[in-house]
């Protein structure tokens, strides 16, 4: 614990901290371009120069370890002149195109120029020009502006695990580029835009569309995967312009996936902005009154047990709570949320949560992945698994995929899990040796025909290999749907599962199906039933609908979401929905009145109060629960040879918003097939 004196302030920092961190601890801001807390230290920009007594020259504070008794000056004349000089060299080749640069207004170089610049420019020679590079459909490059901080290169290597970027050439001819002009094929590529301290890498779909000072920012929560990443939505007028990550150390650190960031244009297209009713086989625009009338007329004479309700992947807790209330009042108990046919039940919360917690992965030292590709199901979570791969062994059961770290493949059938439980195979040694091992069941495992058996096997493996102890729960289900844990908590599960409802609809046992944002099942199987679709986008779900009620998307309503860990988080309204579209719970409340059993709340506050009274844990905002470990869940039984496949094939097309997005469609095209699946050769292991 060295103690330093910085500008007369004494600070004590942890061993291994740098002088720059010590300065920050003392409350002094040090300018920097290349240094970033979450990347390795590079020390090339020299902007963080400070004066250290007894040192002959200024030192780069980002790369100098803090030592006992150091005396540092950060505002001496020498430091000021040093930084001025550095900035002058940095700007030597930097074009003065701030007026046409998208970084303008939120540019580190602009800000630091104001604070640390010297006099007018003295450079009179020609400036260098760098040809355009192509980093793929999401990152716009103007490499003439690049100041070679190499943050993006380090991000690609260390965080994304896709070592595609590099600095070629040297000296004045150095250029940051991808290998032979290939795109930067990572599902985290958008983060380099945030990292770039200048305007060299900017957001391509957002190019020239807004200035930062025109935007109104709202802090909210993402729904494109079940991580519940903290995001900031920037809107101008009635349009969300972009999403940026917010720091949440225990969830997404400061990264978000490309889908979270760039599916924003999906909020503009294919929107449902008024009710529709099917008349004579065609969907006709209708008023709310007519739509409710049509539902009410249909419901007369249909018994409650012939009504089913399904909730989709993007629903908030409030609308699902109102949905449950409405359908229960109608007498229906066939409620379901497991669109993918997952086999976990609602009885034991620990049986469907990511119990280790996302930040808990950092403590784990061995991991077994079953039927999951975390890179596609929760891209940001995969970063932590990459770090785990450096500390301990990771093995997988299921399809072989490139996860950007080395994985031992144990087989692709349930047999592999049975072997593991029987203590066979090399990986059992690694599991036994591990202090905090974990198992992750992905969508491919829990929705497998033998999903219930897999759950039982996983439960027993967790018990056998010490994954469960007083302070550690290594059993995890990796969800990909933002609404899933909340829906499970609300008990939106039926004994016969999703197939029970679909079969029932085919046989005629179920006459009416109410879909709340349901787009991921085979909806043609509902053709015989009367289908109500309530949702935000005209996607798969509307194809077989008889009545369409226009709801709003996640940016257009206040809502509560529970992420895969069981963390309850509140999302905010950023803008209002289009046209006639209304907050989902208000639609359900209005419909309930029409149907004669009014739901007992008029405002969202009343709804939340009621909901939290029914489900007390919904009020534990931003807390990770510690659920009791049940003796058993799942079903013991014989298994088949059906291979365990992964659930998500196309990362860019997993929900109605992403499918409506033109940018996501471009990504799909750019990264489809062999290019994206190119064999990994991991060198960071």
């Amino acid at each position, binding site marked *: 614990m060295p103690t330093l004196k910085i500008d007369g302030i004494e600070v004590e920092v942890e061993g291994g901290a740098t002088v720059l961190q010590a300065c920050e601890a003392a409350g002094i801001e040090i300018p920097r371009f290349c240094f970033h807390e979450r990347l390795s230290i590079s020390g090339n920009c020299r902007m963080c120069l400070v004066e250290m007594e007894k040192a002959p020259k200024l030192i780069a504070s980002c790369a100098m370890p803090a030592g006992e008794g150091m005396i540092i000056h950060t505002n001496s004349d020498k430091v000021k002149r040093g930084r001025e000089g550095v900035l002058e060299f940095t700007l030597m080749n930097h074009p003065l195109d701030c007026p046409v640069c998208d970084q303008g207004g939120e540019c580190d170089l602009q800000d630091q120029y104001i604070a640390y610049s010297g006099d007018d420019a003295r450079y009179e020679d020609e400036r260098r020009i760098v040809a355009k590079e192509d980093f793929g459909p999401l990152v716009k490059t103007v490499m003439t502006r690049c100041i070679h901080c190499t943050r993006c290169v380090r991000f690609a290597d260390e965080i994304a695990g896709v*070592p595609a970027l*590099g600095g070629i050439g040297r000296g004045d001819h150095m250029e940051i580029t991808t290998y032979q002009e290939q795109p930067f094929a990572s599902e985290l590529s958008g983060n380099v835009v945030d990292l770039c301290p200048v305007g060299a890498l900017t957001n391509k779909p957002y190019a020239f569309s807004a200035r930062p000072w025109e935007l109104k920012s709202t802090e909210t929560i993402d729904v494109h995967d079940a991580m519940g990443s903290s995001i900031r939505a920037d809107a101008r007028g009635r349009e969300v312009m972009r999403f940026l990550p917010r720091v949440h150390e225990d969830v997404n650190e400061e990264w978000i996936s490309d889908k979270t960031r760039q599916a924003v244009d999906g909020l503009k297209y294919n929107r449902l902005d008024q009710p529709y009713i099917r008349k004579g086989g065609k969907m006709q625009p209708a008023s709310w009154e007519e739509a409710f009338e049509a539902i009410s007329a249909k419901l007369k004479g249909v018994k409650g047990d012939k009504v089913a309700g399904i909730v989709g992947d993007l629903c908030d807790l409030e609308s699902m709570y109102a949905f449950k209330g409405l359908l229960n009042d109608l007498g229906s108990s066939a409620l379901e949320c497991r669109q993918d046919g997952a086999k976990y039940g609602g009885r034991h919360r620990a049986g469907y949560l990511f119990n280790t917690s996302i930040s808990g992965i950092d403590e784990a030292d061995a991991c077994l992945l079953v039927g999951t590709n975390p890179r596609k199901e929760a891209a940001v979570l995969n970063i932590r698994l990459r770090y785990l791969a450096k500390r301990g062994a990771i093995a997988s059961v299921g399809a072989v995929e*490139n996860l950007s770290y080395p994985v031992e493949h144990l087989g692709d059938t349930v047999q592999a899990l049975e072997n593991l439980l029987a203590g066979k195979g090399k990986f059992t040694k690694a599991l036994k040796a591990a202090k905090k091992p974990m198992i992750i069941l992905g969508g491919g495992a829990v929705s497998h025909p033998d999903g219930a058996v897999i759950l039982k096997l996983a439960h027993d493996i967790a018990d056998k290999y010490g994954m469960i102890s007083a302070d550690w729960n290594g059993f995890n289900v990796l969800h990909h749907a933002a609404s899933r844990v909340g829906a499970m908590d609300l008990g939106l599960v039926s004994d016969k599962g999703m197939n029970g409802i679909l079969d029932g609809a085919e046989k005629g046992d179920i006459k009416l199906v109410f879909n709340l944002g349901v787009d991921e099942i085979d909806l043609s199987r509902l053709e015989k039933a009367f289908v109500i679709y309530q949702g935000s986008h005209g996607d798969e779900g509307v194809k077989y609908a008889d009545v369409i009620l226009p709801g709003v998307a996640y940016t257009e309503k206040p809502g509560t979401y529970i992420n895969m860990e069981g963390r309850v988080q509140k999302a905010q309204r950023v803008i209002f929905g289009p046209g006639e579209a209304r907050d989902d719970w208000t639609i359900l409340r209005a419909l309930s009145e029409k149907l004669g059993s009014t739901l007992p709340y008029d405002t969202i506050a009343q709804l939340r109060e009621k909901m939290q009274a029914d489900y007390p844990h919904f009020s534990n905002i931003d807390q990770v629960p510690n659920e009791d470990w049940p003796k058993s869940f799942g079903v013991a039984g014989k298994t088949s040879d059906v291979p365990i496949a992964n659930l998500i094939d196309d990362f860019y097309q997993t929900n109605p918003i992403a499918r409506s997005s033109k940018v996501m469609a471009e990504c799909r095209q750019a990264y489809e097939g062999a290019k994206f699946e190119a064999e990994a050769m991991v*060198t960071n292991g």
Partner: protein
Amino acid sequence: MNISVRNAETFEFTPENLTWAAGQLAKYPASRKQSAVMPLLTKAQEQNNGWVSVPVMEYIADMLEMPYIRVQEVVTFYTMYRQKPVGKHVIEVCTTTPCWLRGSDDVVAACKDELGIGFGETTADGEFTLLEVECAGACVNAPVIAYKENYYEDLDNDSTRKFIKAIKNGDIIAPGPQTTDRHKSAPEGGPTTLKEFCATPGGDS
């Protein structure tokens, strides 16, 4: 992730070079085999007619389990890895200050005249490539030309022409000082100091 851009072309070390490469790799721990990237690239360039092509880079990267971009960084950083095809005979003329003071302009003129090409160019028959290089590190024998692994030193216009003509005729003249009788970089006209020095081990000087 490595996205290969190599097309139909392939590159592979000859069996002799492969044995040699194994010897280089043996110098480093197995987890640090990237350390061998520079000697391996040099050898590969030699085998690949004097330049590093995309298949060469990818072959070396695969062999050392490196991302392709990391190998490209090395290749583009060092000027002695050539990224374009060159002629059979690469003549590298030093024009940095000491050589220039000692008459490298004459040497350059002789080269250009004899070969009919300028710097960075290759003769139409693919025989010669003429390159301008920064300090070759042999200033004491300026001006110099580097050819294959040898230096031709103390050159002037005539001796340069003679040197190139010899290559054209399939001869290789002996490397070292061309216009002086000195031995390597020893003083002209014999030693001037340490004349009594006896280099014999155990000598009594």
